[in-house]
């Protein structure tokens, strides 16, 4: 039986953060009810698939799944109980934001089988939290973390952001060490990007926010690369750090380019050969489901060249890189002979490391990953 990862998008937040370009809407009781009804229909439409695969990971992302009320969460979890077999599920993650969780919610999460919590902390300075449009303060970070631990969760990830407007290297160091002191099992780091359509994008364009200082951005990333391993956090992917054995299995599905099913508005899915995406608007998503149709709005069949390119691009994000044997099995050819010219160039530039068994980014390649990825794209 085929193994897949299951992603469920919960598109509600207390309020949208100024930098965020994910599909999310302000929490509203009627909308949540409609969404949950839609999700149930979507689960029904995928009934056959969901009962004929092994679901090895589940990821409840958002949005802020934890901003649902205890009653709404109960409905969501009941849906999972009814529609999703979890006997093969090794990891079930739910994203939470500080200030939106309670003991009752955490207990319900435990009961449904959530065994990993991803907490969106982002920074440890009230000034930066406020500027980002986060709805929580520093004190709530500690309260929430404490609550999660007390509820018995043994696997916690903390999301952090760097290269924030006006953020100093010292502040970033304080954030990193502060988080390391909390000893979460996993840490994820993202540099701020001014994504089109966000508040931050407009503010930056109107010069109300300073542009990103690339030197500082690099120094902050470098600081994390230096500091985190000292506390046992091994970088296993461009943005992910964890002790060996505590890597996020669900995300590994993406990096290995293995199949996953995404449900909910704006969710993405991949069979390896086909990628598809749901409507991002709640109305469109619901309308399709009410009509008995899957809410898919984009569908792309990938040529073998693209499948190969994506497998390489995703695989190289991992520190260990890409296994040449599994690549050969999947594509009937050695990566080093198919891309001989590009590989030689990249090796010459000191961006790529090739061993008999693996191909991976060098330390420099990690910083210029896009330059490497470009070489493998067709055309």
């Amino acid at each position, binding site marked *: 039986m085929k193994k897949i990862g299951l992603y469920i998008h919960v598109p509600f937040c207390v309020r949208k953060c100024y930098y965020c370009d994910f599909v999310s809407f302000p929490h509203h009781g009627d909308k949540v009810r409609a969404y949950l009804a839609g999700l149930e229909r979507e689960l029904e439409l995928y009934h056959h698939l969901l009962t004929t695969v092994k679901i090895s990971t589940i990821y409840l992302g958002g949005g802020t799944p934890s901003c649902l009320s205890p009653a709404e969460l109960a409905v969501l979890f009941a849906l999972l109980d009814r529609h999703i077999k979890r006997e093969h599920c090794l990891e079930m993650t739910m994203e939470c934001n500080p200030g939106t969780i309670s003991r009752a919610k955490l207990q319900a999460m435990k009961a449904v089988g959530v065994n990993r919590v991803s907490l969106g902390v982002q920074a440890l300075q009230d000034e930066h939290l406020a500027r980002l449009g986060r709805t929580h303060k520093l004190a709530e970070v500690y309260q929430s973390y404490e609550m999660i631990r007390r509820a018995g969760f043994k696997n916690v990830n903390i999301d952090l952001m760097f290269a924030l407007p006006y953020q100093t290297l010292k502040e970033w160091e304080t954030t990193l060490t502060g988080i390391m002191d909390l000893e979460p099992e996993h840490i994820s780091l*993202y540099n701020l990007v001014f994504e089109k359509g966000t508040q931050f994008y407009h503010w930056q364009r109107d010069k109300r926010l300073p542009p990103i200082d690339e030197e500082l951005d690099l120094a902050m990333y470098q600081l994390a690369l230096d500091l985190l391993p000292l506390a046992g956090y091994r970088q296993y992917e461009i943005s992910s750090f964890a002790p060996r054995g505590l890597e996020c299995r669900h995300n590994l599905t993406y990096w290995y380019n293995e199949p996953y099913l995404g449900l909910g508005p704006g969710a993405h899915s991949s069979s390896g050969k086909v990628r598809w*995406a749901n409507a991002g608007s709640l109305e469109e998503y619901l309308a399709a489901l009410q009509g008995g149709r899957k809410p898919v709005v984009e569908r792309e069949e990938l040529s073998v060249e693209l499948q190969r390119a994506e497998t390489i691009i995703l695989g190289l*994000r991992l520190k260990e890189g890409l296994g040449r044997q599994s690549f050969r099995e999947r594509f009937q050819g050695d990566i080093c002979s198919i891309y001989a010219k590009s590989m030689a160039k990249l090796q010459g530039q000191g961006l790529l490391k090739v061993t008999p068994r693996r191909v991976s980014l060098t330390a420099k390649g990690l910083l*210029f990953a896009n*330059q490497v990825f*470009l070489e493998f794209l067709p055309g």
Partner: protein
Amino acid sequence: MGLSVRELERQQKIRNFSIVAHIDHGKSTLADRILEHTGALSEREMTEQVLDTMDLERERGITIKLQAVCLQYKARDGKTYTLNLIDTPGHVDFSYEVSRSLAACEGAILVIDAAQGLEAQTLANVYLALEHDLELIPVINKIDLPNADTNRVKRELETVLGLDGEEAILASAKTGEGIEEILEALVRRLPPPRGNPASPPRALIFDSHYDPYRGVVAYVRVVEGTLRPGMSIKMMAGGGTFELAEVGIFRPDPSPVAELSVGEVGFVIAGVKNVKDCRVGDTITDADNPAAEPLPGYQQITPMVYCGLFPVDSNDYQALREALERLRLNDAALVYEPDNSAALGFGFRCGFLGLLHMEIVQERLEREYLLELITTAPSVKYQITDTTGKIKYVDNPVDFPPQQEIATLAEPFVRATIIAPSTYVGPVMELCQDNRGEFRNMEYADENRVVLTYDLPLSEIIYDFFDLLKSRTRGYASLDYEYLGYREANLVKLDILINGELVDALSSISHRDQAYYRGRELVDKLRGLIPRQMFDIPIQAAVDNRPIARETVRALKKDVLQKCYGGDVTRKRKLLERQKEGKKRMKQVGSVEVPQEAFMAVLKIK
């Protein structure tokens, strides 16, 4: 052999004329009115400005290719006259063509805008016309304009040109006023053509164009003798012999006739495959009964401005070659040869009559043949005398010998005539000095306007001289120039090195005193255009292998998409694909990727 009375009478009733004017003074509109008035075209048939047929001409409001029209006019004396209107291009790039057209006429209408007055081209046209002993009929046009000042224009005609201001006809091509008077003046003031219809034929080619079905159509003025289909004709300068298939006149549509005789203007078709074999200025004669001497004034056209044309996509090289071949069928002045640049790959080195001619060719290649091109900086042809005394001509900076092998360098000079309101004399003189101009003369056209004469290096004019002149005089100055010849100059080759590698396509020739400034500007501009890469990229300007300016494109610190979750792989891939597309359009110089705009930058530096 005596002439028959009928023959004499026919010749007596022919008038061949051109219309000359400064740009925008209303030449084309006036021509339209004349066509309309003589019934050559009904009003409905007239699109606007019939004589300019190329799209580009209409857009730019200038005439590039010449046309000729045969009109019938019943004059007040009761007789019907044949008026041949020979159009002339209105730009200094094409002054040789203008001179050949004027050589085909007995007179010219000189159009002057009643509000603008005399302009530089007006002067140039008058001098050309007088060189050919043409009878001039000054016409003050646009008298319907509220700011028309006919008295001022009359004074200018007298003081600057020595013409009788009172003889000028007041007209408005817009309202039709004065058109009849102009036609009468053509009949009364212009002499009929002279020449013997029984002599061996001599016909002047004043234009030609390539027709894909019929081959070259040559526009001729018969000066002596008669041309008939079936004759074997010979190009006296080009040397080719052809069977004359058809002769005809334009009314204004081409209409075949039995013969073209003395004084007549029309077209000749003789199965010529290429305009090169049927050059403007050549004389057609009877191969079996040739004239002793060709008509005077024939010149081999030589390009004045050169540049490299390279396809952005190197796969388009063959398409570019074919497009140039086709353009040349119709444009004997366009020359090109294969060129190979280390930075830009395979392309062509092309020679043009001038900057406008260059722009027109580029635009046609891009518009009609859908080619994307990179153009290198325009250059003139330099005369180099090496230390052994050998002289050679070089139009491509790449071919410049090392400085130590050069004994003397010379560059083409032109004599520029600039007419400007006297309040702008300061800025205009300053501009000329800045461009290494040598002052020659200054005189007043009237109390408000000045005619300045400067000798200037052609290389300075082909950059942005004209634009600067316009901007410094708020558009009031006009410019015309004529070629003078070579003069010695202190020139150097300015090289650009990117990451230590010389980029041939960015080299240019500069006066030694300006090289430093140009080098600085260019390097600074390139720094802004070359995207940051994984390493620092030094950009240097150098003269004689000595660096004179340097900037650095700082290395990119990192290039990685950090955020990549939720499984939205397609979007990340699309971002990468866009990045790759951008890279593909760049040219590889050593290990540095250089965008096209960088090669354009050198065009804009002064």
